[in-house]
């Protein structure tokens, strides 16, 4: 075994405090990144991942005010490239070439050399030939790869990536991961990648990703709570235990094993281990299906789109003859690649847009939360926000409206924060407040546009549980196939402006061809059920229950 690679950057007892905020965003962090290694950074929303990335990259303090304590030691001449979640907030040029050339020109690189280095950087992320393109016309995956190319043009030895996949569909995410994997292999660029979805990386038996980190860090409450190698069994075990304990996603097999004491005690942490363990004690006793029944049997039709055609520009149809009905008690997940028309369909249901052809009918009261919940938060306090609809929409007296608002806040787990300024809440809380401000109006159908973006598992589950309790029907769009599989009664797949398929999650995800065509990926749980030879289950809890009932110690 050779010498370990030298440290590129190291934090020694680093703490960072933003001005005017109580507590430190990062406390006593000691972390080192070695040349050429790939690290994954996990943690709950608002736990300090972005701050750690920026402090490591030398961007804090600097791009923002604040106080850094402790020490940051960087290798001589270290250049860090930084990529954030939303490419639209980072791209400011009208041509891909200029975007990538920006850093080179700042560095004083001669113009003759700029062109060659821009082409090289674009080629490295699979955008060769796109130099003259307008980034505004690129897909989400292409935009994110352009941002990576812009960072890469300066030949950084370390790339810091802050949830670069969270706004991308599975196909776009795969494109970006492939580009990053190639960069690691061909250029030896070290990477620190903050991400909520670690499950594929922590399960060696699922080789679904082009990039597998060698180490995983976890940050929660501003503290680094885990720094473990993911190639060794012990490191993986620690990672799964810590991340699972933080309420983050872990490989589905580990999640199931956590809920089956015999398996967990036997050291089962991955798919292969779970399959071996189950094969040894499988009794084959109950033949009953493990499929969970729908929470409520679908009732009468509340809302329906009939042959809806819609386009934002003349001659271009985002939706082309879509018909879909929403019944009482249903939870419907809209899936599809970026630009497939999910948000447009929700906006048509909400009445924000009007169809060019066809119609949307139904007298059900509808509530709609935007993809960006912040756009809905216009009042001074959370209670004012939740009472806004009853006060001005339902024309209730202030006291009645306030009571409705308090009820909605309680339903969404915000009962203890009525006087907080909405913008001072965490992102997950803001999303729940936006939903509360709609639910307080007593809606029949809640339409949620991408409620999962940038949220950790705990926040997503809390939100969906609350809205499921408070609302007759829920329609939500998402890229998260695991969530759709676990939570929706019906999955509707949109592709090229049409409904490519709809049915129960089990029916839809069984069609491998469709999954591929629609740019989706198959959820992990059905695949695990197949491997274990058990009936399809929708949630890890259900599968764990099934395994507990059908396994006997030999």
């Amino acid at each position: 075994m050779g010498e370990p690679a030298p440290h590129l950057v190291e934090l020694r007892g680093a703490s960072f405090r933003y001005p005017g905020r109580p507590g430190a965003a990062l406390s006593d962090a000691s972390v080192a990144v070695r040349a050429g290694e790939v690290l994954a950074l996990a943690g709950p929303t608002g736990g300090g991942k972005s701050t750690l990335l920026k402090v490591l990259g030398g961007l804090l303090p600097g791009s923002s005010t604040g106080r850094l304590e402790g020490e940051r030691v960087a290798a001589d001449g270290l250049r860090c490239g930084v990529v954030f979640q939303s490419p639209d907030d980072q791209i400011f040029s009208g041509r891909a070439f200029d975007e990538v050339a920006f850093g080179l020109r700042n560095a004083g690189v001669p113009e003759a050399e700029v062109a060659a280095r821009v082409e090289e950087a674009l080629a490295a992320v699979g955008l060769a030939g796109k130099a003259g393109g307008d980034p505004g016309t690129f897909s989400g995956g292409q935009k994110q790869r352009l941002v990576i190319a812009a960072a890469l043009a300066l030949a950084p030895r370390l790339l810091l990536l802050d949830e670069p996949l969270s706004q991308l569909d599975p196909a776009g995410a795969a494109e970006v991961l492939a580009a990053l994997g190639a960069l690691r292999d061909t250029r030896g660029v070290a990477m620190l990648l903050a991400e909520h979805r670690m499950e594929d990386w922590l399960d060696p038996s699922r080789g679904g990703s082009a990039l597998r980190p060698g180490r995983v860090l976890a940050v929660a409450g501003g503290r680094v709570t885990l720094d473990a190698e993911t190639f060794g069994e012990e490191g993986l075990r620690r990672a799964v235990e810590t991340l699972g304990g933080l309420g983050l996603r872990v490989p589905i097999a580990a999640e199931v094993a956590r809920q089956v004491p015999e398996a967990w005690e036997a050291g089962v942490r991955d798919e292969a281990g779970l399959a071996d363990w189950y094969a040894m004690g499988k009794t084959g006793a109950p033949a009953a299906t493990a499929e969970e029944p729908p929470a409520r049997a679908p009732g009468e039709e509340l809302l329906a789109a009939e042959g809806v055609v819609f386009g934002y520009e003349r001659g271009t149809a985002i939706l082309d003859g879509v018909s879909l009905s929403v019944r009482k008690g249903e939870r419907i997940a809209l899936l599809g690649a970026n630009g497939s028309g999910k948000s447009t369909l929700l906006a048509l249901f909400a009445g924000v847009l009007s169809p060019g052809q066809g119609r949307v009918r139904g007298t059900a009261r509808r509530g709609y939360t935007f993809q960006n919940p912040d756009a809905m938060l216009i009042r001074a306090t959370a209670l004012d926000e939740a009472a806004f609809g009853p006060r001005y929409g339902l024309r209730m007296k202030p006291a009645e409206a306030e009571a409705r608002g308090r009820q909605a806040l309680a339903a969404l787990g915000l009962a203890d924060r009525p006087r907080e300024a909405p913008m001072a809440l965490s992102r997950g809380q803001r999303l729940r407040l936006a939903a509360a401000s709609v639910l307080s109006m007593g809606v029949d159908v809640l339409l949620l546009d991408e409620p999962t973006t940038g949220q950790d598992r705990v926040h997503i589950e809390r939100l969906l549980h609350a809205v499921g309790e408070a609302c007759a029907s829920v329609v939500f769009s998402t890229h998260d196939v695991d969530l759709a599989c676990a939570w929706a009664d019906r999955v509707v797949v949109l592709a090229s402006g049409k409904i490519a398929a709809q049915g129960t999650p089990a029916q839809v995800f069984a069609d491998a061809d469709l999954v591929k065509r629609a740019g989706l990926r198959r959820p992990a749980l059905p695949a695990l059920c197949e491997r274990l030879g058990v009936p399809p289950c929708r949630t890890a809890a259900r599968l764990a229950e099934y395994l507990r009932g059908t396994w006997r110690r030999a």
Partner: protein
Amino acid sequence: MKRSMLDPRAKLLLLFQAGLWAVLLDRPEALGLAAALGVFALLMSGVWTGRWRRVVVSLGGLALVLWGMASTQAVFYRLAPRTEWIAWHPESPFWSSLLGPHGLALYREGFAYGLTQGLRLVLPASSGLALAFTTDPGELLAGLKSFRVPYGLAFMSVTALRFAPLLGQEAAMAWRAARLRGFHPLRAGPAASLSVTIGLMRPVLASCIRRSTTLAASVTSRGFDAGREAAAAPAGSFGIGSWAVALGSLAASLLIAAAKVLYLLYLHEIFYRSDLREVYQFVRTWL
């Protein structure tokens, strides 16, 4: 963005001159003609880019500015002479005590004065919008750099232009969210409407802060330093069309400036020549 026929430097020169004309010209007719050119440029930006919505919204905004300035000045004009255009002299003591002894009147001179001031705004605003809608940010940065505008200022101006339309979109989204929750300004009353309208600024401001923080971190990581000069994209070739427009407009500006100076010298009895009487007359009547 589709490259326009005019070089960004020629467009910047035109914008500078639009500002100059807004200061030099006094007659509503001349300002109206110049503003019409600015509005024509704005309309042409719609033809060029095919994106009409923002052009229509901009024109609507400019029309409101013009109407607002002309009508308020028509009401509140206090200089003499002034001619009543439309007047209401109430006999009731209540209205007299409320409106004063002269009642309510719209003054012709006030309207013309307001119109002139409004056109002074519309001219550079419409030209600036036309420039922003038809110029690639990189080209604009190169153009500003070639006029020796400090790099930090040039970059921040270009970035502000790039993100400015998003502010409007976000405010519209916040308004839509309020309307979806049943808010209606006419039903809610003026106090609540004002409070909600002010509240719309919250998400817009929050978004501005988030976006600028991300952008600041992103450009800092790419070596941007507002206090340090850096290269911009090399400026393209200055074609014949650009030369013609730049020289033609420059000549017009010089002629207007020279005529105005001669007129002012005459007006203040500093310099007079009888063979320039036609120039004096032209300036008084048209400029």
